[in-house]
């Protein structure tokens, strides 16, 4: 039991339950399964993005360009759809993944081959990708009316009681769980974050692995691009502007250490869920939306403080043993 409580995910989950309980006292319908399903669906995109960011942060890197990638890819698929409504949605999704992959690979290449710190690379591509969106679209928006019904409805179709968007999130979560715990690349990602030097000696190619994680975050950004645009039915240059920090915030609340090596799929998902619940709940419990920013800021600080407490190394036990004896 004691070791069970050591997992920060359990604490985070408890926090979320408490949060839902608190909200329910002000708005009884909030804890209804139907409503919770909807909260999950509303948070799906953030969860997916947080997972993509997580693998990057685990390797002691950061990807600030995810939201710009999302914006660019979303615009590309929206324009494609507007121009050629006949292209089937699965093909569009594959295109979105591919475009995202290319953008991620550019980040990864610069980090890998030129050894530029990832924060600098992605700070640069953050503006480049969004700017390129403007160039590609000529600044024009793609509106709901220009999108094909399939494009919009795909993620909304219900499937065993859940919309496809939720299912996509569930599949992505499962995939990440599998990759991070059951595959060599997943374990290499952790190893690099824990100890890059030792990883080299263990035969892990650190540079190449970093390249791969940026490709992963790129693919995720691309996927989220399609999902975002078809969800909010408008593609513009301003889509998800500043959202990169929300993604990182979700990871931080989820207990993913910015110093790398520590964090789990469950943590990232719960961190995103936490933020999702807050943004969902504030309007319904009649707290002015102007409070939202301050609340999520406080939540981030609280989460970091608590995580740091948990990480703090306990002193040696020699003396305690000696005293007990």
């Amino acid at each position, binding site marked *: 039991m004691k070791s069970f409580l050591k997992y920060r995910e359990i604490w985070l989950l408890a926090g979320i339950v408490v949060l839902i309980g608190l909200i329910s006292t002000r708005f009884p319908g909030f804890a209804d399964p139907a409503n919770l399903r909807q909260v999950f669906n509303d948070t799906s995109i953030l969860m997916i993005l947080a997972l993509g960011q997580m693998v990057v942060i685990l390797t002691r890197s950061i990807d600030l360009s995810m939201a710009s990638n999302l914006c660019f890819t979303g615009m590309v698929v929206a324009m494609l759809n507007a121009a050629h409504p006949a292209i089937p949605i699965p093909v569009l999704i594959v295109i979105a993944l591919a475009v995202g992959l290319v953008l991620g690979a550019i980040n990864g290449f610069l980090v890998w081959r030129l050894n530029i710190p990832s924060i600098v690379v992605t700070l640069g591509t953050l503006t480049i990708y969004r700017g390129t969106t403007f160039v590609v679209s000529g600044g024009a928006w793609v509106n709901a009316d220009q999108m094909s019904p399939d494009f919009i409805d795909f993620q909304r179709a219900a499937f065993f009681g859940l919309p496809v968007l939720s299912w996509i999130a569930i599949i992505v979560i499962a995939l990440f769980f599998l990759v991070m715990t*059951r595959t060599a690349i997943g374990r290499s990602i*952790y190893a690099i974050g824990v100890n890059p030097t030792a990883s080299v000696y263990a035969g892990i190619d650190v540079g190449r692995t970093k390249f791969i994680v940026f490709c992963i975050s790129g693919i995720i950004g691309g996927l989220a691009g399609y999902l975002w645009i078809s969800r909010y039915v408008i593609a513009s240059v301003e889509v998800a502007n500043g959202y990169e920090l929300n993604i990182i915030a979700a990871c931080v609340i989820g207990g993913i250490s910015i110093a790398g090596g520590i964090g789990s799929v469950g943590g990232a998902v719960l961190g995103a869920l936490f933020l999702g619940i807050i943004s969902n709940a504030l309007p319904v419990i009649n707290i002015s939306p102007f409070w939202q920013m301050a609340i999520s800021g406080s939540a981030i600080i609280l989460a970091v403080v608590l995580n740091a407490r948990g990480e703090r190394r306990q002193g040696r036990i020699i003396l305690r043993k*000696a005293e007990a004896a």
Partner: protein
Amino acid sequence: MDTTAHHGKVDERLPASAPRLTLTGISKSFPGVRALHNVSLSLYPGQVTALIGENGAGKSTLVKIMTGIYQPDSGEIGIDGQVTTLPSAHAAFGHGITAIHQETVLFDDLSVAENIFLGHAPRTRFGTIDWRTMRKNAREVLETMRAGHIDADARLKDLGIANKHLVAVARAMSIDARIVIMDEPTAALSMKEIEELFLLIEFLKSDGKAVLFISHKFDEIYRIADRYTVFRDGEMVGEGLLKDTGQNEIVRMMVGRNVDHIFPQREPKIGAPVLSVSGLSHPTEFDDIGFELRKGEILGFYGLVGAGRSEVMQAIAGITRTSRGTISLDGTSIAPKSAADSIEAGIVYVPEERGKQGVVIGLPIFQNVSLPSLARTSKSGVLRLAEEFSLARSYTERLDLRASSLSQDVGTLSGGNQQKVVIAKWLATAPKVIILDEPTKGIDIGSKAAVHGFMAELVAQGLSVIMVSSELPEILGMSDRVVVMREGRIAATYDNKGLDAETLVRTAAGIAA
């Protein structure tokens, strides 16, 4: 060239078995530095070869070439008689070459089983990692090494340093390594743990592994190794069988000259107490520490690794907080809250970990030296470069620093020269008490003698020295008195007159006489 240089180069008494790994004519240069020049090395199955050389002789570079981290500029690598290349760490891994390093390079936040199997974990038929088999295999490997007490699911950071070494060896076993490189594996181990490690090495030998053993400690080398190779300044100066070669001969090969005695003779002039500590306690690290240090004295602190010696010293130096107790210097009570307070009072602490706690790589030599003395070399906060240079020069030249200029990045210096910068840095604060934590750890014999000579010089000038050391010869050879610590407490204090090693070891280990 020295006449002893190529002693035993050709040895007809080598065993008939073919070498597993041969390095022939390896050279490697870095911008401005020639790390290795035309060196050769052979490792034989079932034998331990000791690689001996001063710091900066090129040992680490060779290890990095053998593990695929560096590529040689020229030369040939042969495995089982086949010429091959090791373009990456992964390739070396594929050839069964594994290295266990001085500072254990494993993964603190991963489990023991994962540390053992990272990179070659057993797979399920879907290609995913088979955790169950992995744990089982990990337990088996640990059992065969008689290390079954280690929990395969424990996180590595919860293990002691000796157990971490065992995990590293288990890793070598698990990849079915055929060539095991041990780079100063005993540096941080206690005597008992070293014994266990030697048992393991015997086990590896009997298993037919080719072992390369790097150490500065001759007793260990003679205990465990079968043959030796000596490097000096990036060149191979000798090799042969240890049973045929005396210690003095090897030392001569290493340093290229005779080293008659290691410890300086001195006539201690001990005065009144300078530093007195009483009842010093810390919530978890140490308890009720009390001792006195007198003017002109070298006080040795002996104990097993983890006995709390460094923590006590760091508390006196203001780096670690204490819960109780008093420290007084020249009769005045002081309560240092930071290293700055201690330095101001006249107590300096030369830390054990040179790279992490000593030098500031990235800054030039003179800035490293002046760092703790900036208050003196600046005027109302404004830097005076001339002062800094003259301060840095006076101390580094006294220590015979080898550098092309004082503006050179300290990171470009060799380890021994970095240590000189570190010592110069603290001496430049004009201290009354200097605490040296493992001052000769990981440095070569030549530099060791220089440091010991310098310590003698310091006390002769009236300074007081505390020397924390885990090396018995050093403790016995240098100290005027010896404090032995065990499990966070002072076990005993001895006058170093007719003191024998056995007493110290027994006291440190808590074995009744």
